[in-house]
């Protein structure tokens, strides 16, 4: 069977820069967001969720993250957390602790209200036409 395998060509990640409104969570971002994401992970334990809810700022001091990262978490600025190395699946532990859904958080990152976003999804979602590349977004202005 080994002889039938094809070798995939190696693709650099730089081509991804052209995809609009999308952050690629690669090894470099994973390093940048390590403590943000590990903090989120700690919220998988009920006792930690309680401790965090009692005093968020004190709880966050356990993780040696940057002040920017800390502020983004305290403000629940989801888009900023992603920019600073957060990953949506790790952040989900935080918004689940807040009682929020993936759909609520996705909506805030697109600048829509949850109602507007839900309506867009009911109508079939964000269309691919016009959303493939950054140049399409620039043309649209």
């Amino acid at each position, binding site marked *: 069977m080994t002889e039938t395998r094809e070798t995939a060509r190696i693709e650099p990640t730089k081509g991804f820069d052209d995809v609009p409104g999308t952050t690629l969570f690669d090894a470099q971002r994973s390093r940048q967001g390590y403590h943000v994401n590990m903090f989120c992970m700690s919220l998988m334990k009920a006792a930690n969720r309680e401790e965090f809810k009692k005093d968020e700022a004190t709880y966050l001091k356990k993780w040696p993250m940057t002040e920017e990262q800390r502020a983004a978490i305290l403000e629940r600025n989801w888009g900023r957390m992603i920019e600073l190395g957060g990953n949506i699946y790790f952040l989900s532990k935080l918004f689940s602790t807040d009682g929020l859904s993936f759909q609520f958080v*996705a909506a805030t990152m*697109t600048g829509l209200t949850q109602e507007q976003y839900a309506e867009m999804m009911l109508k079939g979602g964000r269309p691919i036409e016009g959303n493939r590349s950054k140049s399409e977004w620039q043309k649209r202005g």
Partner: protein
Amino acid sequence: MAKIIASVNVSHVPAIGAAWDNRKTDTPYWEPVFKGFDFSKKWIADLKPDVILLAYNDHASAFSLEIIPTFALGCAAEFQPADEGWGPRPVPVVKGHPVLAAHIAQSVILDEFDLTLVNKMDVDHGLTVPLTLMFGQPQEWPCRIIPLHVNVIQYPPPTGNRCYNLGKALKKAVESFPEDLRVVVFGTGGMSHQLQGARAGLINKEWDARFLDNLVKDPEADARIPFIEYVREAGSEGIELVMWLISRGALDRDVKEVYRFYHVPSSNTALGHLILENKHGV
């Protein structure tokens, strides 16, 4: 000898698990989603597989950023439902098949796929939502389940081509196991969706339909899709679809399409579902 008889491919949207657990399955929003699995529930109840080999991705539940295995095979006797931030889902414990898993590990690693082997792994919605959709809420899952985790969270994930070939290696492994077991392979995740950033909510029905058509008739075409196309056309989380190539690779080249279901939206996601059987019969 053990035999792979069919594959089940299905999205694993967490909101589906929440809808089921909170008994919202008959609301206007969720009713069509669950109705789409009426056929599948009956099909798998009639089929009565002994083992499910289930390819899914852990969503930062068992694996944090401390260790990021590309492929991790669950070799334990039991896997507990994970607490993803709102308490564990009220679903049965997943019972593994350590003997078959050990055999698969040996066969596949000697076949040059360097799996990570895991003896303790809580399983999250990626694994339990497909089981809920196929089996509802039994006291115990009706068969043994071997979890196969695939990293699709941190780029780069394995290529579709690699996943397709891993599926072939899994087929070889299962079909050299001496016990008479009937095995169904699950590929989960997808279809088009993006959960993050200003482009969140992306859905691409035409691309999804082509992916499904090719998965049935020309899987090599799907296996050649590069990462950039998944991200651009199917959204940053659409990359989960590489796991459907594992289940496809584990089947024969010629398959019968038994059932297809596609529904938008399921929360942020285009829900896709495809059942395939090997033509030589189940």
